[in-house]
């Protein structure tokens, strides 16, 4: 009892104040419980509104006149997840070419046909890739199985590898990519808008969001930004990313680039906005905070403790990559007293014969490591392993033997280099790798003082970055007591809210109460 009261007191104390968030609207749900009308026009109006047609570009409505009975009809399907060939050959053609007046619809179609009356049920079927056929004058819809989700012909993700969880990745076909996302979110509110973004090449961009979650203001900002582009050609998303990001010169990325449809889906459901283009085996997610780069798809697939364990490892890797060589320089040159005596003597004795100052020594090795990495990346597959051997053997062993570097420096650079691989995101990876060098130099010039000064400047800068108006370190700071997924993840049952910094239209992740 007392404990509860104390807990309540603290909760009240640390609770942040913020403007109230919105919750899901109820009227929509009521509409969906209704039966459909017998008038085709009315039905179409309802469904067009739900599917946000014509903005939603992969929802297909074909108005046809059934041959023979001369009745008007409409075929509704989502093109990215249904088999268009089947629709064309087995639904539309038989209907059009009919000349028998008395035949019922079921008989006309060679596919198996179900009837549905409630809007909600019909929506479910359509979202599953099936096709709905509405006929004027009939208070029901015919559902025909046409679903065709893109599956494992799609390739495995190569850059964002996971052990547990789905392994498929986006490919260069936008329609496949949308299908992969629709496979995860079978929600009529998932809108795919398309716009042409370049003047000459007429590149098509698909903007995905969930209508009743994503914030309007954010959507408008992004639409404006995209529409204001005045370029002849934007081949793919990697190029587009550089056109639309806020801070072009900044070291920190502000748009998340992922090749995993499951990640894109996850972000969509939190109220983020996803961009997809042809020719890009990936999706852009915006706005992106530091945490979205830091997190990995696997964090949530692994069990609570294991997921947090890899988070800790990643954080450690991040700090090691950033600081280990800088700290080595700072300590061996300025703060020698910190090193335990035996290690001190060991370093001292091995360094004695190295002709370069420590800063030069470590810079040399760092650059060599980066070279091996870059070289190894571009090298044709068959020669790949050779490069590894050459790099490790020649550069490590031989450099030590030739007294070019001391063995400890090899360990330090190798550890830093290896740790950098634990940061999966390509952009953040580059950020960290680049930032090492300023830290290294500041440590060389002013020891821990310089290192800390630069670190503090970095923090001040990082907190001030904004990605499409969202603070870079939200929700850690500025704090709102909604999403708490920052360094550590919570139990899934405790992740009740969507990130408040996006101002989603529905803050709670639970449906209903």
């Amino acid at each position: 009892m007392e404990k509860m009261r104390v807990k309540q007191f603290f909760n009240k104390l640390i609770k942040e104040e913020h403007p109230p968030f919105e919750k899901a609207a109820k009227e929509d749900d009521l509409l969906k419980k209704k039966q459909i009308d017998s008038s085709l026009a009315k039905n179409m109006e309802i469904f067009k509104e739900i599917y946000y047609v014509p903005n939603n570009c992969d929802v297909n409505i074909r108005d046809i006149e059934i041959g023979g009975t001369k009745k008007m009809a409409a075929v509704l399907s989502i093109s990215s997840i249904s088999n268009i060939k089947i629709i064309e050959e087995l639904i539309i053609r038989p209907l059009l070419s009919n000349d028998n007046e008395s035949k019922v619809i079921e008989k006309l179609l060679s596919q198996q046909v179900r009837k549905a009356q409630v809007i909600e049920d019909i929506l479910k079927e359509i979202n599953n890739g099936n096709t709905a056929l509405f006929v004027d004058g009939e208070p029901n819809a015919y559902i025909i199985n046409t679903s065709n989700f893109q599956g494992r012909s799609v390739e495995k993700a190569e850059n964002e590898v996971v052990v547990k969880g789905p392994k498929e990745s986006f490919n260069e076909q936008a329609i496949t990519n949308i299908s992969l996302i629709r496979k995860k979110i079978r929600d009529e509110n998932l809108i795919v808008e398309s716009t042409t973004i370049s003047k000459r090449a007429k590149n098509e961009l698909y903007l995905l969001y969930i209508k009743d979650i994503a914030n309007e203001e954010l959507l408008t900002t992004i639409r404006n930004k995209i529409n204001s582009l005045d370029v002849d050609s934007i081949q793919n998303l990697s190029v587009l990313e550089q056109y639309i990001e806020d801070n072009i010169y900044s070291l920190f990325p502000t748009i998340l680039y992922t090749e995993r449809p499951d990640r894109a889906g996850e972000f969509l459901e939190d109220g983020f906005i996803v961009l997809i283009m042809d020719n890009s085996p990936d999706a852009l997610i915006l706005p992106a905070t530091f945490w979205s780069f830091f997190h990995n798809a696997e964090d949530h697939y692994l069990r609570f403790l294991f997921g947090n364990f890899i988070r800790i490892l990643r954080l450690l890797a991040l700090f090691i990559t950033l600081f280990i060589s800088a700290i080595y320089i700072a300590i061996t040159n300025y703060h020698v007293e910190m090193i335990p005596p035996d290690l001190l003597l060991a370093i001292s004795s091995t360094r004695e014969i190295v002709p370069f100052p420590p800063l030069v020594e470590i810079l040399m090795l760092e650059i060599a490591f980066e070279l091996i990495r870059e070289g190894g990346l571009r090298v044709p597959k068959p020669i790949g392993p050779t490069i590894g051997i050459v790099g490790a053997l020649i550069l490590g062993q031989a450099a030590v033997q030739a007294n070019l570097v001391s063995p400890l420096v090899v360990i330090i650079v190798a550890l830093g280099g290896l740790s950098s691989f634990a940061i999966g995101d390509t952009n953040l990876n580059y950020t960290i790798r680049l930032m090492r060098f300023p830290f290294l130099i500041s440590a060389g010039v002013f020891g821990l003082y310089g290192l800390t000064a630069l670190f503090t400047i970095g923090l001040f800068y990082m907190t001030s970055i904004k990605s499409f108006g969202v603070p870079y370190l939200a929700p850690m700071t500025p704090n709102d007591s909604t999403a708490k997924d920052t360094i550590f993840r919570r139990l899934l049952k405790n992740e009740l809210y969507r990130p408040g910094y996006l101002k989603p239209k529905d803050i709670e992740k639970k449906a209903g109460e």
Partner: protein
Amino acid sequence: MKNQLCLRQFLFLISMLLMLSGCWDQTNIDKRAYVVAIGIDKGEDNKINISYLITNPELSKQEGASSEPAYEIITFPTNDLISAKNTANSVIAKEITYNMLGVIIVSEELAKEPEFIRYMYDVTKDREIKRNKTMIITKEDVKTFLTENKPKLETRVHKYFEFIIENAKNAGLIPDFKLHSYFSITESDAGLFLSPYATTEQVPGGKYTVGEDELLAGELNIEGDSNTQFLGSAVFKEGKMIGTLNGEETRLTILLNETLEMGEIYTTYSDPFNQQYRISTRMMKRDKNEVKMDFTGYIPVIDVTVPVYTDILSTHSMETFDNGKIEQLKLHIEDEINKKLNNLIKRTQEEFKGEPFGWALIARKKFWTRHDFEKFDWMNTYPNMKVNVKVMVTIGTFGEQSKLPDLSEVRD
């Protein structure tokens, strides 16, 4: 916009300037000479002779055993500890640093000088000397001590000092006081500071004693390659050395002093059942001393109760103990410790006129303000105090095999 560009260029220039002119405090790790021990001897006039024991990092190298010696010792006259760093560079090639300093060694001769404390305050000025280092007092010149001290197994000389101090301290043979206590005890002017006492000079033939620890460094007769002894303690009053305590007295001081940690002490007592033999015991302190002070009377009184936990390890009289005998043994040991303690306390009151037991700290609780305490003048009152010591022995185990055969039967 133009302004911003200007600002950026300015900032860039500033940072370049910093970078080009930076690195003031930078000294490469391999360009330093690491002093492991500083020795201070009395020199001529107001000068001191300083000795550096500089370790050789070559030994830590993995490949190619080096033929260089493990360490180097230099001695030269200087004015103080800090400027000596520079003077030494006329001989030593690398920059002298005290970063790895383990011990400060002072000769007894210098420590007994009234001027000694002046040199010690150099230590507080130099940032490289930490207050958690140990000060060792040597009987002979430190120069001789360092050259004579040749640890055979610990070629890395910093390890040698680290280990020997650690283990002698655990055995209770030397006190566990750091430089920090030297300053705080001296400055509060209410107690005595103890410092480990060591020597390489053996008294020829050693000194015979009944027990095993009534010895001072140098008096233990050890034959073999190592001739350095850490045993007993040097007593400092007001920053100046005034005498020594032998190993046993040091142990008793540790027993009485609550601020010093007592390890397991192996020691012997005379056997109450057969005066010919001695019983060896392991002493431990499990509870705190109870110190009661009464300052109301004309003569201040201190009552100390010392609880001691003892294991009996060997009895050469081959007695097997029963309850009565245990009681007898207990009384005997209590009595023996009591006598020794009373002697020690008497010695501190009469000879040193101060106490190394940290009682001043306990006495402070009796006073409200610093002024009252200083008026009481602990240091000068102590010699006239009445100190009652009571030892409470608890006997624990009797070794792995508690019963011994009757010798007369064995011999039969």
